């Protein structure tokens, strides 16, 4: 387009949309968060048809499209499948000050990975294949952040 700004002063409106929501966590995930909050345990659910174990639990098996009422308690430990060290700050989004580590953790006893933070280790020491265990917050309120992070174990 022609450069119209040489002829007229440009006006800019800053804006912001703030819309509060109140999301129900639903039957499946509510149960999961209550178990995490009250008992400090990580549970998963299993497809009765193909046996796939999902964590966090799912309402339906993505492959079989079946209800999943079979619950299994996981040991909580797992293996780092992939990770990233976040270096660049993202104001308002970062759960802690960079550098910090996100990972997909393949959970023992489950067939899926959980995305979470890795802590208790220098970011540059994190490796794919590292064994990790969850570190729980003492005060828990039923959120994914009730798990503070996963930390390497021997």
């Amino acid at each position, binding site marked *: *387009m022609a450069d119209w700004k040489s002829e007229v002063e440009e006006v800019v409106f800053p804006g912001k949309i703030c819309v509060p929501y109140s999301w129900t966590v639903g039957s499946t995930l509510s149960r999961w968060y209550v178990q995490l909050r009250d008992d400090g345990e990580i549970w998963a659910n299993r497809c009765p048809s193909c046996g796939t174990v999902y964590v966090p639990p799912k309402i339906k098996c993505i492959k079989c499209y079946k209800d999943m009422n079979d619950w299994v308690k996981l040991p909580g430990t797992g293996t780092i*499948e992939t990770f*990233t060290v976040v*270096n660049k700050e*993202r104001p308002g989004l970062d759960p802690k000050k960079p550098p910090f580590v*996100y990972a997909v953790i393949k959970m023992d006893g489950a067939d*899926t990975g959980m995305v979470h933070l890795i802590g208790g280790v220098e970011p540059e020491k994190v490796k794919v294949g590292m064994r990790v265990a969850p570190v729980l917050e003492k005060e828990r309120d039923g959120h994914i952040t009730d798990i503070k992070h996963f930390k390497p174990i021997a």
Partner: protein
Amino acid sequence: MERVAVIGVGQTKYETDKRETFHELVWEVANKALNDAGITVREIDNVVTISSDFWDGRTISTMAVSDTSGGYDKDITTVEGDGTFGVLYGMMRILSGSFGTTMVVAHHKGSESNMAGITNTSFDPLVERKLGLDAITSSALQARRYMTVSGGTEEQFALVSVKNHGNAMRNPFAQLPMDITVEDVMASEMLASPLKKLDCSPVSDGAAAVVLAAERSAKKMTTNKKRVWLNGVGHCTDAYRLGDRDLADTRALKKAAKKAYDMAGVTLDDIDVAEVYDAFSYMEPLWLEGLGFCEDGQGPEQIERGNFTLDSELPVNPSGGRLSANPVQVAGLAGVIECVLQCRGEAGRRQVRGAEVALAHGINGMCGQSHCVWILGK
């Protein structure tokens, strides 16, 4: 089945900080596409806009561009996703028999909003959103998983950035034409390892439009030179949650590609040029595996062998790709337009000689959850 043609195309130059509103950008490209087809807005029967309420900062975003897109007094509808899916919806409308010549138009002003904040809201608020994941950090998880599975290196990924920014130097619409080296990519700011600034597509503003017509009307309205046929399309979706997928597994893309090739009746050897969704450098070899141009795990090595440069057997991203301009949702439509220009022989200094069959690829969702593959041809 009746065929559908692209009879007109238009795009803005892609830039980082455009001072026009998104309505003005839509006005610019809708007019360019009409002029390119040699028709007037009266000959447009209906409009498919591609937009996102979050990016635009207003709900029912389609209505905000109803007048400038030519939708006034007509049927107007929206796809919230990549432009390749908008073309799919446009073609479906025509093939349903209920709609005539269709304008498909996409717009994006990344500079007016916040990429990290908006892509974070694509994550489940009940599980992952609170951790602060966004497009770059989740793609970094995918990049490392792909390195683990394929043995690919950051240097091999950097070659994609070097190639595509170099191609952009021949594309007047590209935002970031750059003559850079692997060392430049490696030395650029580390955002989320292994992704550095030059592995990532930029924040972009721009718009793009195509006019689609059924075979009978296309032949009445336009010359043979302008018509490029939508010969095949395929689309497929993988699991929503990152942990429910193997991020290096391209099963959804493989399915989408097979559908598109079967519908068009082409094999890989028939394809002369491809626009592949390289929002991040590692994505080009990963998606080339899914599309079948590389064996699984061989993408990075084939990049290193120079297999997808402009003078190779299969030039990939002659436009400069998403690495050189990534107006979200417009980007896949820009790929479709590049394919149209290549098939017409109108791609200027980046023209792939003798290009007759072109592939355009778009993705939706984090880490390529969903894929749309097009085969276009003269």
